[in-house]
């Protein structure tokens, strides 16, 4: 579904990501863990085609992000770490804008908006301008917009930040359901308990380099993910 091979990204002389390779398969929830500034967001932004990278290849559903970015983006949805949405639009206008871009038929989009907005208890606020939304509400709107077009791959950067416990729980269920239907999810998080319970596979990145990767059992063994992570950080 998502194949990152030998990804390298430099910011001036600093290597933000150094020869990183990951492979996310259909049906997988893939957690991406690392300390602040480790290179998680850079990897994610490169994967979704909003950041140019220096070396390596990224393919989504077999298509190269550099050669055919539009086709790749049709298959994915991205939620950034800070949901800076169009503040001048109302929630419903934003969702309809996204739906128009993905050419979702009117009846289908209305049904989906109704379903997800009800689930996230956002229906009453859809007429409000996004500028009046709290961080959590913006995050919910970003999640709904990501699920609108049935993407094959969903890439999320710290998706649980700002969400209330109920919305977090809901998002986890949606993630699992998406993968059960054959989709894949690649997300970064600092909440190791969530990663431990939710992810099928996990990768740990340190100073731009991949230090550990595999199924949850392979990575943590008999320890907790937190112990493994702190141990790797200390090395």
């Amino acid at each position, binding site marked *: 579904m998502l194949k990152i091979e030998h990804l390298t990204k430099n910011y001036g002389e600093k290597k933000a990501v150094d020869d990183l390779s990951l492979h996310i398969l259909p049906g997988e929830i893939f957690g991406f863990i690392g300390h602040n500034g480790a290179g998680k967001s850079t990897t994610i*932004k490169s994967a*979704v*085609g*909003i950041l*140019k990278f220096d070396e390596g290849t990224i393919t989504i559903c077999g298509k190269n992000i550099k050669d055919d*970015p*539009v*086709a*790749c*983006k*049709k298959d994915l949805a*991205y939620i*950034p770490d*800070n949901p*800076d*949405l*169009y*503040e*001048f*639009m*109302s*929630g*419903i*206008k934003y969702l*309809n*804008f*996204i*739906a*128009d*871009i*993905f*050419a979702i*038929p*009117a009846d289908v*989009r*209305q049904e989906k908006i*109704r379903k997800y907005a009800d689930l996230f208890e956002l*229906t*009453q*606020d*859809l*007429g*409000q301008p996004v500028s*009046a939304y709290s961080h959590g509400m913006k995050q919910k709107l970003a999640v709904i917009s990501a699920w609108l077009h049935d993407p094959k791959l969903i890439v999320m950067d710290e998706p649980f930040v700002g969400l209330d416990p109920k919305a977090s729980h809901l998002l986890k269920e949606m993630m699992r359901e998406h993968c059960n239907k054959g989709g894949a999810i690649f997300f970064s998080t600092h909440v190791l308990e969530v990663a431990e319970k939710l992810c099928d596979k996990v990768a740990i990145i340190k100073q731009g380099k991949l230090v550990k990767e595999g199924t949850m059992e392979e990575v943590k063994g008999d320890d907790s993910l937190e112990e493994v992570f702190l141990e790797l950080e200390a090395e």
Partner: protein
Amino acid sequence: MLRILVKKQLAEVFKSYFYDAKKNRMRSKLAIAGWIVFFILIMVCLLGGMFTALSLNMCWGLSQAGLGWMYFLLMGGIAIILGAFGSVFNTYAGLYLPKDNDLLLSLPIPVRTIITARLTNVWLMGTLYVSVVLLPAIIVYWIMTGITAPKVICGIILYLVVTLIVLFLSCLLGWAVAKISLRLKNRSFITVLVSLMLFGGYYFFYFKANDLIRDIILNAEAYGEKLKGAAYGLYMFGRIGEGDFAAAAIFAAVTAALCLIVWRILSRSFLNIATSTGKTEHVRYVEKTVREKSVFGALLSKEFGRFTSSANYMLNCGLGVLLIPAVGVLLLIKGRVICEAVEKAILGRPDCAAVLVCVALCMAASMNDMTAPTVSLEGKSLWIPQSLPVEPGTILHAKMAVQLILTGIPMLLAAACGAFIVPASAVAKVMVFVMPLVYVLFSAVCGMFAGVRMPLLNWTNEIAPIKLSGAVAIIIYGGWGVIVIMAGLYLLIGYRIGAAPYMACWSILLTAIALALLRWLDTRGTEAFSSL
């Protein structure tokens, strides 16, 4: 504490002098010195020079007629109007909208200290405006009538009194704006409307000012007597400048009392207004039938939404939308008379009226520069267009379409008016119609090119990309430069080939540049946009 807060606020106001937002780093010492010298030049030489000339014009006649008080009343009045109205929106933004209101209110700082710091800032800004008018006025008076101790002491008191009156009025107006804006629904449109009315009033007063001042000077004695009788307070105000200690003491006491009252009122209402989030009426969502849009339609609709959502964007980059039809109407009503006058005034330049009508229409079109800041305005939301499955070229085309539609449609009507009234050959009339439309295309494409090449994405206030970005400056001044060259070249040598061929040459040149830039935008421009 007060000192720290004032220092912080001044650092914010003059931040751009020390910090380069585009490069995200402090400016070099040389650049800082350059910016400060530039600021001083503008304030002292340009504005100060303008009011020194006005003072020189008025002072001698009035003081010799024993109406020195009227001289100070007029100059003080100008200083008060400039100071209060010049800083009303700054006062509103500075007192009630700063982003650090919540932070400061959460710190162990008394509200009255915060409001005092804010007021000090407002006072300093108002004093800046007052100084460019009143300092030259007072100094000119001293030089022309001779310096005495009472005049110096009272002159200083007058200066301080005026700065306090400006502070009082700014706060009052700022408070009114804050109160009104909490109740407004279509805030951006109403702001545009009010601003346009203020602009109109300002220019009306500006064009009438000379006649008004001449009339006052000619009939100074009669007006003086009337004023003294009807409004003794105004007479007393003017007397301060002449060295009247009693008038100075009364006005100093009254203005100090007014400022104290304002400070008390603001201290009490500050918390309510500063923590208010505006009109809180909840817009209840009612599901409606959705009309599907094409990708381009969705992007275009989004761009129109962005433009109409911001009063700043509309006012600074879309004045042409109103100006172009206004020029069209003016041409229809007065066009023939103007053209005849132009032809008579500029002899030996056949059909120059046709070229100048064309130039006027292009000038009106140059007031629209929506494309120049449009990429920068994406700001932190840039991830949205970049992550969507849309060709970057389509995004840029949608952005350009906004300017083409909002400038092109009014221009069709205005250019038709121009072609209709201009006394020229049929071919020249066609060119009067075609060339402004070509300029509309040229201007939109150039704006887009500059916007992609010089984006300013790390802004916290949209004023930065709209007013202060390099792209906007280049497009505005560059556009005017092209138009000046267009007119000047015709008057110098272009007339030799005739108006119609001259306009045709320019049309071909502008089209060629526009097409070349379009080609760049569709190739390297799209790459540049997706790499931002």
